């Protein structure tokens, strides 16, 4: 066993062990911490794959940003109080997850003996009779040959591909707009409105309700109590 294999097995144990802890523990805060450990282990896998950029990005985004967001949300919602680890369908969930795991193993199974993409059933299903070496114009590693090293300039190549019209420019710009929308939406949803805004809102709702009632009376109908936006008023009062 080489040292890399040993490191890989160690990392795999850390990843899977902490992931199992994440989905079974009662304590949400510890689950979040263990999730950070999982992410750290995955960053280690990226190092073994010789992709330093993504190992660092993994630490920066998943540990430094997403986990922090999750911990803030745990604190904001009092999420770990009296938490039950499983819901009623946990057994069914375990069975489903197990079945999917075996399906995945069956799918990836052929790769144990061959990495010839052409002979891999899934690819030939998608590509049909066309040679998969042509799919996407990508230069695949030929089977049985040593894997070429990552190019020295892979970061620059990646950066160039991101802003290249023929490669990933469109998704790159779409990401910017997506993040824009996400930020606006999340702030709108999560933000507590200021008292002045709430009062203004309630006044507007009351006016609308009054107008509606007036319109109904003019139409010869009895004002319906349910037409008042009861729930909306209650929820704004809750803030």
């Amino acid at each position, binding site marked *: 066993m080489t040292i890399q294999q040993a490191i890989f097995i160690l990392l795999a144990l850390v990843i899977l062990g902490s992931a199992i802890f*994440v989905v079974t523990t009662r304590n949400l805060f510890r689950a979040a911490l263990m999730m950070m450990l*999982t992410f750290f282990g995955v960053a280690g896998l990226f190092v073994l794959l010789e992709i330093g950029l993504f190992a660092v990005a993994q630490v920066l985004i*998943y540990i430094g940003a997403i986990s922090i967001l999750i911990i803030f949300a745990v604190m904001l919602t009092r999420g770990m109080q009296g938490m039950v680890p499983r819901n009623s369908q946990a057994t069914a969930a375990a069975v*489903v*997850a197990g079945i999917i795991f075996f399906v995945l193993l069956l799918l990836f199974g052929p790769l144990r003996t061959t990495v010839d993409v052409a002979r891999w059933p899934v690819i030939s299903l998608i590509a049909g009779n066309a040679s998969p070496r042509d799919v996407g114009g990508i230069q695949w590693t030929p*089977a049985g040959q040593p894997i070429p090293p990552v190019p020295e300039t892979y970061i620059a190549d990646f950066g160039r591909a*991101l802003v290249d019209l023929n490669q990933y420019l469109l998704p790159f710009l779409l990401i910017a707009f997506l993040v824009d929308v996400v930020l606006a939406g999340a702030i709108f949803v999560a933000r507590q409105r200021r008292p002045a805004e709430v009062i203004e809102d309630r006044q507007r709702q009351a006016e609308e309700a009054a107008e509606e009632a007036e319109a109904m009376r003019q139409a010869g109908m009895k004002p319906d109590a349910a037409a008042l936006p009861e729930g909306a008023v209650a929820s704004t009062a809750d803030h």
Partner: protein
Amino acid sequence: MQNVLNGIPLWWYLVVSSALFCIGLYGVLARKNAIALLMGVELMLNAANINLLAFWRYLAPASSGGLAFAAFVLVIAAAEAAVGLALVISVYRVTRSIDPEKLDQMKL
């Protein structure tokens, strides 16, 4: 003939990522807490990223495709967490509960 990098064949990565994916899936299906559920989703997205990058490294390291997709997955994961947690916080403020099974006001 296998393609092996540093003594590690490709399918090792695939097994780890499949297992991580299924653990995350179990978390999504079986947890009784919306935040724990989102943690499961993050684990699943991470598993997808391992797959993307492992395939890229073993099969097509000369192109930038795998890197670009992995980066986009990273961004989407962050976006998903941000919106999901904002929703959880806002739901909690109204109902004082983050149990997804209790959010059934829309049911007839």
